[in-house]
């Protein structure tokens, strides 16, 4: 599993308070709309965690609905921040 996907899963599961062994997650696992608890506070928590982990700053303009479509789209965003 790529490091960015692994990190995305860690961060999203922590934000949604999901226990990883209980859910089988791949890059294609949908995110927004798929979890009842997924709301603006979850998004804030995920974005904050990415910033703290990578030491980067994420601009408001970068926060689009497409970013939170799936675990894979979040992983791709992390990759873009690492490059």
């Amino acid at each position, binding site marked *: 599993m790529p490091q960015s996907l692994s*990190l995305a899963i860690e961060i999203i599961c922590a934000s949604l308070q999901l226990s990883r062994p209980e859910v089988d997650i791949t890059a294609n696992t949908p995110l927004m709309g798929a979890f009842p608890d997924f709301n*603006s*506070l979850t998004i*804030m928590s995920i974005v*904050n965690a990415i910033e*703290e982990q990578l030491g*980067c*700053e994420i601009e408001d303009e970068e926060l689009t609905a497409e970013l939170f479509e799936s675990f894979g789209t979040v992983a791709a965003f992390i990759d873009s921040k*690492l490059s």
Partner: protein
Amino acid sequence: MISVSPKFMATDAGQLFTLHFQPQHPPRALIIHIPAYGEEMNRMRHICLQQGEMFAREGYYCISIDLYGTGDSSGELADATWAVWKAGVISVINSVNPQRNLKTILWGTRLGGLLAADVANSEPDDCDALLLWQPVTAGRAYMTQVLRQRVAKLVDRGEKPETTKEIRENLAAGQNVEVGGYVLGGKLVAEIDQVELLNMPALKGKALHWVERSITAGGAATLARTRVDEYLRASGNAVEIVELDFPPLWELPRRADMSQLLASTTALPLA
């Protein structure tokens, strides 16, 4: 027997509320605790109290400060500035350790960690070592996260959200802005935006004890911390990193078991 006593101290930053954890015997060192910001401070308060008591039992004299405009101290948060916060910390040190007979350790939690480091950077003689609990490393990124709470609240209410850039513009224009129940003023936010752990040359040579929560499997360091760690070591700092698996207590509305954090911190060779 240790003693725990509250005191209002007259400082250059107004009347500050302080809690004094005093050991039974003459102290081995002074520890000044600088708390986190906003709700993070409230959520961490009970654990910081426990840590203060444990420090006192280990022979340290620990003082926890409520910064100007926060907690039980005088002033309004909207009128607080970073400079006033720093002046308050320095005033407390001057008051209890005027001759610098005691080694002074600045213990900062979250934003308090950044403030502790900035005090040590400005007044290197007032600080012998730093103890940082999950410190904020870049003020601007942290304040963006704080301001995002307002954006999220507006989204949840179905109101037109502002961007954090627009909120900063309003603050810069002199408006106070309410975020998460706290009214912030523009000067404080603008000052915090400028503070970075990666730009503190006078920390050179200071001992740093850095306690961080690991969220990645296997306890890998965050890239952010690795970068700061490399900078500090390159500047000649003795950096001790303590990676622990503990819940993010600054985010938790309820109490959690923090015995590992407390025990590991108490065991650090601070002085």
